[in-house]
């Protein structure tokens, strides 16, 4: 501590070390938050349902998504990424996941939302297995903190079925 430079160095070193500890504690404090998000998705319409020239089934849906994800937000949350995936089983694959819609929620004020949309990304099967197929719509989310550990979880909504015929 004998010179200006030495003291300045000591202050900065200890300050950054304590800052790292504070950030770790902020990340740990996220574990005290027990979120209880809710979500509901309605398939309002099958806009069209066809077999592509290459033999893959393709569906266009109109969705009504309402969700309340505000309980995911803590003081250490930067944003939440959400996406809706159609999940179904085919003979080739035990689990197919096709992302239909996604969004970034920047703050708690925007976490309770209601949206009416067609699928943002195309729902195409690997093959021709979609006629009469039962599928789940799953709301996945990834919580992106300001510092520390990311969290991810999902809500599975069951009981959707595609029509037997192309239209």
């Amino acid at each position, binding site marked *: 501590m004998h010179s200006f430079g030495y003291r300045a160095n000591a202050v900065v070193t*200890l300050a950054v070390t304590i*800052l790292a500890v*504070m950030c770790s504690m902020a990340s740990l404090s996220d574990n005290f938050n027990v979120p209880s998000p809710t979500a509901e998705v309605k398939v309002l319409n099958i806009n069209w349902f066809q077999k592509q020239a290459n033999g893959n089934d393709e569906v266009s849906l109109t969705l009504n998504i309402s969700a309340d994800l505000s309980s995911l937000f803590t*003081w250490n949350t930067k944003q939440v990424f959400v996406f809706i995936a159609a999940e179904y089983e085919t003979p080739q694959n035990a689990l197919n996941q096709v992302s239909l819609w996604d969004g970034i929620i920047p703050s708690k004020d925007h976490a309770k939302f209601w949206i009416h949309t067609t699928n943002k990304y195309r729902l195409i099967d690997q093959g021709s297995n979609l006629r009469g197929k039962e599928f789940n719509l799953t709301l996945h989310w990834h919580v992106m903190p*300001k510092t520390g550990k990311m969290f991810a979880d999902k809500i599975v909504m069951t009981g959707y079925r595609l029509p037997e015929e192309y239209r």
Partner: protein
Amino acid sequence: MDWQGQKRAEILMQILLLVSGIAAFAIGYIMGSFQMMLLIYAGGVVLTALVTVPNWPFFNRHPLKWLEPSEADRHPKPQVSTTAGPKKKASKNK
């Protein structure tokens, strides 16, 4: 900065930084504002740097008292014994 001042500066620095860190975290957590935590802590770091980095008069209250040169001459340093002398000279001659 004298010896006591250096010790004082180091302890003061550690206490100030720790206290501002704990206070910033507590206030930020209670207010639910990460930004508030960072602002309070940044203020604490700047305050700590201002208090402990410059060589304030506060850190120079215990100056070392050196002997006057005339006083030192009256108490000469004990001479180093000369037993090691011949060996060194021998090695140099070789």
